[in-house]
Every structure is written in structure tokens, then in C-alpha cells.
């Protein structure tokens, strides 16, 4: 189940072993028969710096949302440190609209293990964890089985493939928290605590899991690494656009004819992605807006989407590539309702650590609910923008920004929809002579 029909316009690297219709996961025998663990074997014969150089050359950037160059991240780990080094996989996948990591873990779990092994080799780690959100128990079980197989075949454990290298890997379940997708909050959660973010710097490369140097990357980022080692960083880089190497998974959802997870090169035109791969807007309707990278990314209107979808082009367009979650809104979409729903989510998920986010998201959610019900005032519209602007950039982690960005972009681009809702509900009028509770 799950896998949508592949599209001829896809470039299949991460998903090259997938088959449609979907069947059991690719277990170790089949994986090895299809070039599995060959990238890792190659890495075993390379000095760590060369591995990191290869990943740098590929210009692979973090697929979790921030788009930080992976090779550079790996190079920050101090291999000479006397402390143990750790590899942590971020499989929390909580960004609304994102459902790609689960596809990778469900179909090709050994690819992820291979990616971890290569990273471990590069940074000198002997232990790693795959942190997976609690709702994905099905995927945790698949990965547990794959890890067991890897131990049996000598790809994990001590003296791996006779090389003298040691690496242990296990899964770690989350228990329902969007915030734990933020890398420092994830590390707190891994240590058995509330998922509150840490002050940075120090970054995890210096002080990460259990206070030791740690590399944290998204599932998809690790999954891209085996093919980079196998075919070279230059090959991977050439698939995408300059500084945006390779392919990525996009999750098409919302008002679209063929929703699904597809693999396209970085820089693939967003309009073509929606019209050709996604089959266009459903029910013959017109496109109103696209949320290009998960609910935290600023919204793009229908005439802003004829751009290459890579990190730099999206940033230039005032949005972000984010986690690859592309949500399509047709002409009937109520943007006030949409933003109210988005904000309800952030208010629910704010961990409460930083006041601007804890208070900001909660108040924004209330004001937006009021506007959506038609009981809002004109000044509410300005207040949304003001609140979001004052929250932006003033929190430990990016959750405050993640809530502020859609708020600012939607209220600015679709202000007329907010104005149209004002006065549409019967407003409570206090009886004459009632003393107001608060005088403004």
C-alpha cells in the first residue's frame, strides 16, 4: 500500500529500489543483491576526510527543512575529541504535509542503516540512534527488524566486515511532540527529558547527545549518502542545480489530482511539479495558493510558483523548500480558516520554553479563531501581523518562526479575505450601563 504510481518525470535515486504496487520492505538479501552496502564498503577503504569531501562535493543539503550542507555539518565534529561521537537520525517527521521519511523507512530500511554507517565512519562514531515519532510504530518495527538483520550479517556490531570498525544502532521512539523534530529538542528527548530546545551555540556537533559530539540529520539526508559514495559527489551534484545537489522527495497533498510522494531533482519547476506530476488541481478548479515546504513555509500565490524548486530559488521567492511538503489549495480554499487551523497546531505544539512563542501562538490562535467565526475586528488583522513579526526570530528554536511565517505571508497576501469576514457574525453587545472589565 502507500506507494503511488511512479511518474515518468521522476528521477529515482532514493526510491530506485522501490516497486509498484508496493510489497514487503526490501530486506537484507535483496538489498545486498541490488548494490546494498556497496557505498559503505567503499567508505571503509577511504580516510574519513575523503568521505566528508565527497559529501561536500555532492552539495547534499539537509532534507529536514533547514537545508544546511550535510558535508559541512559532518566536518564540524571533532574526531580527536576524547568523548564518544554519536550519529542521530531525525525521523520525527512532524511538519504538517510531510510524509516522505516514512516511505523510505517502510520500503528500503537498510538504505538508512547504510547512510548511518557511512556517517559513523566519517565522524568516528561507535553508536547511533534512529529517533522515530511514536505514531510510526509500524516503521519502528520494520527498522528494528532491519537492524537485527544487519547485526546478523556483520554490518553492525563490532569489527564490521573485518575492518575493526564498531558501530551500534537502535531505534528510539518519540511519544507525540512536533517540537522534538527540532534537533536540540530531539536530543533532550533522547536523553529522557521534555523536548525543550537548547541554547545554540554550542551546536550538536560540539555538545550533542549525552553532551558528546553528535551529527543529527534527517532520514532522507542519510538515505542519500550511499549513492553519493557509490557514484561520487560530482555525479550527485550534477543531478540538481548549483549548491543544491541531487534529488529530493516531495509530498504532494491537498487539492490535487494525484497526491503522493515523488522524487524529483532539486530545481524541478514547481508549476510543472503540480501540473504534470501532480496532475493539476482537482475537480477542474483553479489554483489559489501553494504551501511549498510544510505548514511553516510562507505561502505562495498561484502566480508565484513558476520557479525552480530548490533551496535558493525558494528563498529568493520569499519562501522555503522546507521538508518537501507541498500543499495545494484550490480557489475555494478559505484562507482565514486555513491559517486559523495552522495556528491551532502551533499553539498546541509550542513547548512553552520561550515566552514569545508560548504566548504568541496561543493569542494568534485565539484571534484567528475569532476572525474565522466572523467576530473579528479590523484591528485584529493588523494585530496578527504585529504579533507574528514580534515573535519572529525571538525564540530558542524555529517553532516561533515556523508559526510566524505562514501568519505574516497569508495575512499580507490574502488580506481581503480577512476583511471580508469581519462583521459577518452577530457580535455580542453588552447591555447599556455595563461597566467594561478592561478599559483600553
Amino acid at each position, binding site marked *: *500500500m*502507500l506507494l*503511488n504510481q511512479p511518474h515518468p518525470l521522476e528521477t529515482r535515486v532514493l526510491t530506485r529500489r522501490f516497486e509498484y504496487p508496493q510489497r514487503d520492505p526490501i530486506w537484507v538479501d535483496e538489498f545486498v543483491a541490488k548494490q546494498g552496502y556497496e557505498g559503505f564498503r567503499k567508505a571503509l577503504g577511504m580516510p574519513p576526510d575523503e568521505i566528508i569531501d565527497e559529501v561536500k562535493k555532492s552539495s547534499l543539503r539537509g532534507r529536514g527543512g533547514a537545508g544546511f550542507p550535510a558535508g559541512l555539518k559532518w566536518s564540524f565534529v571533532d574526531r580527536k575529541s576524547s568523548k*564518544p561521537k554519536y550519529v542521530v537520525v531525525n525521523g520525527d*517527521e*512532524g*511538519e*504538517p*504535509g*510531510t*510524509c516522505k*521519511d*516514512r516511505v523510505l523507512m517502510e520500503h528500503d530500511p537498510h538504505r538508512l542503516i547504510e547512510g548511518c554507517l557511512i556517517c559513523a565512519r566519517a565522524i568516528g562514531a561507535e*553508536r547511533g*540512534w534512529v529517533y522515530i*515519532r*511514536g*505514531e*510510526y*510504530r*509500524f516503521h519502528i518495527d520494520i527498522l528494528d527488524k532491519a537492524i537485527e538483520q544487519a547485526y546478523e550479517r556483520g554490518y553492525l556490531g563490532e569489527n564490521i566486515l573485518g575492518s575493526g570498525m564498531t558501530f*551500534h544502532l*537502535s531505534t*528510539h*521512539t*518519540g*511519544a*507525540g*511532540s*512536533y517540537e522534538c523534530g527540532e534537533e536540540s529538542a530531539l536530543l533532550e*528527548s*533522547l*536523553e*529522557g*527529558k*521534555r*523536548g525543550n530546545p537548547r541554547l545554540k551555540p554550542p551546536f550538536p556537533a560540539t555538545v550533542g547527545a*549525552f553532551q*558528546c559530539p553528535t551529527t543529527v540529520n534527517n532520514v532522507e539526508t542519510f538515505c542519500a549518502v550511499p549513492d553519493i559514495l557509490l557514484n561520487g559527489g560530482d555525479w550527485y551534484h550534477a543531478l540538481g542545480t548549483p549548491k543544491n545537489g541531487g534529488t529530493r522527495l516531495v*509530498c*504532494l*497533498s*491537498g*487539492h490535487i489530482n494525484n*497526491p*503522493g*510522494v515523488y522524487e524529483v531533482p532539486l530545481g524541478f519547476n514547481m508549476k510543472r511539479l503540480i501540473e504534470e506530476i501532480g496532475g493539476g488541481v482537482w475537480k477542474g478548479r483553479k489554483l489559489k495558493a501553494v*504551501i511549498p515546504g510544510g*505548514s511553516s513555509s510562507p505561502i505562495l500565490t498561484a502566480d508565484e510558483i513558476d520557479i525552480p524548486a530548490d533551496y535558493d530559488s525558494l528563498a529568493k521567492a520569499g519562501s522555503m523548500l522546507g521538508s518537501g*511538503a507541498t*500543499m*495545494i489549495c484550490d480557489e475555494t*480554499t478559505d484562507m482565514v480558516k*486555513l491559517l486559523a*487551523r*495552522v495556528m491551532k*497546531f502551533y499553539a*498546541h*505544539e509550542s*513547548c512553552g520554553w520561550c515566552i514569545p512563542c508560548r504566548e504568541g501562538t496561543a493569542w494568534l490562535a485565539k484571534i484567528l479563531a475569532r476572525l474565522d467565526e466572523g467576530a473579528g475586528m479590523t484591528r485584529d488583522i493588523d494585530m496578527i501581523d504585529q504579533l507574528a513579526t514580534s515573535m519572529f526570530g525571538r525564540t530558542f528554536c524555529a517553532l516561533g518562526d515556523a508559526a510566524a511565517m505562514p501568519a505574516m505571508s497569508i495575512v499580507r497576501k490574502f488580506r481581503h479575505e480577512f476583511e471580508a469576514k469581519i462583521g459577518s457574525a452577530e457580535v455580542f453587545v453588552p447591555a447599556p450601563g455595563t461597566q467594561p472589565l478592561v478599559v483600553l
Partner: protein
Amino acid sequence: MTFSQELEARFAKMIGNYPPGRQKGALIPMLLYAQDDIGQITDELIDEVSKRLSVKRVEIEEVLGYYTMLHREKRGRRHVQICTNVSCMLRGGEELWEHARGKLGIGNKQTTADGSISLEEVECIGACSWAPAILVNYDFHFNVTPESLDELIDGLRTKQ
């Protein structure tokens, strides 16, 4: 307090997955796996986990207050979780939520009188391309319609 043999084996292995002296790392997985077995987080369970991992009760309470999947209260044997976040909302998640409430006659985080089914409105469950999606315990159901939801719930009732 003793757990099933399977769970004991899991815990024994799990504690070894964290650096020496940092076994607190196993706290959240341990609570969640134990909750799956016994249905809820009980006082007895908190004491047991506290003893096994050498963590204070209050450290466990902190975690319980934070993670939405950990719950002190008893839930239905089948916990129906309906996503109404953006991708699901765009394809009818909210209508589905209303439909489920009407069908079961219970509200958010409530359980039917016979204790068989509980209901919760949840945030994004990561099934956006197959929306609207719901979770029953850990089982995903995709592209759910009010009709298929009726069928599903009727099926859960007869299974008991």
C-alpha cells in the same frame, strides 16, 4: 511489578542502548511500550520505571505532562485518532471528525460507555499524501470517507 516476557526482553535490551549511567534515555520508550501493554500510565508503573532507571518520580511526571501520546487516564481498547491538520482538512478531515463524533456520540478524548472505543482529534500524523487519514491505535487508514469510517467503526465494535 512484572511485565510480559516480551516486554522484559525489550527493556533489558533497551537499557543497553544508552551510554553507561545515562539509562534515563530509555525513559520515554519504556513508558510508551509499557503503556501499550497495560493500557495507561499507572502509579505502579511510574514507581517501577523510576526504580529501574533510577530517575525521580517528578522527572517522570515532567515527561508525562509533555508528550501527547502518554496518558494517565484509561482509554478505549481502540483509540480512534482523526487528523484535522491542513492536508487532511483540505480533503475533508474536519467533516470526518464531526461525523465520528456524531456516530460514536462522544467528544474529544472521551470513551464510549462500554469502554471499547475512544476518540481524539490529533495533529498531523504524517499521512498527508493519503489524506484524510486516521489512526486506530497504531494502524493507519488512508483516504477515509464518512462511509468507510462507518464501516471501520462498526468493524471495531463487533471485534470487541
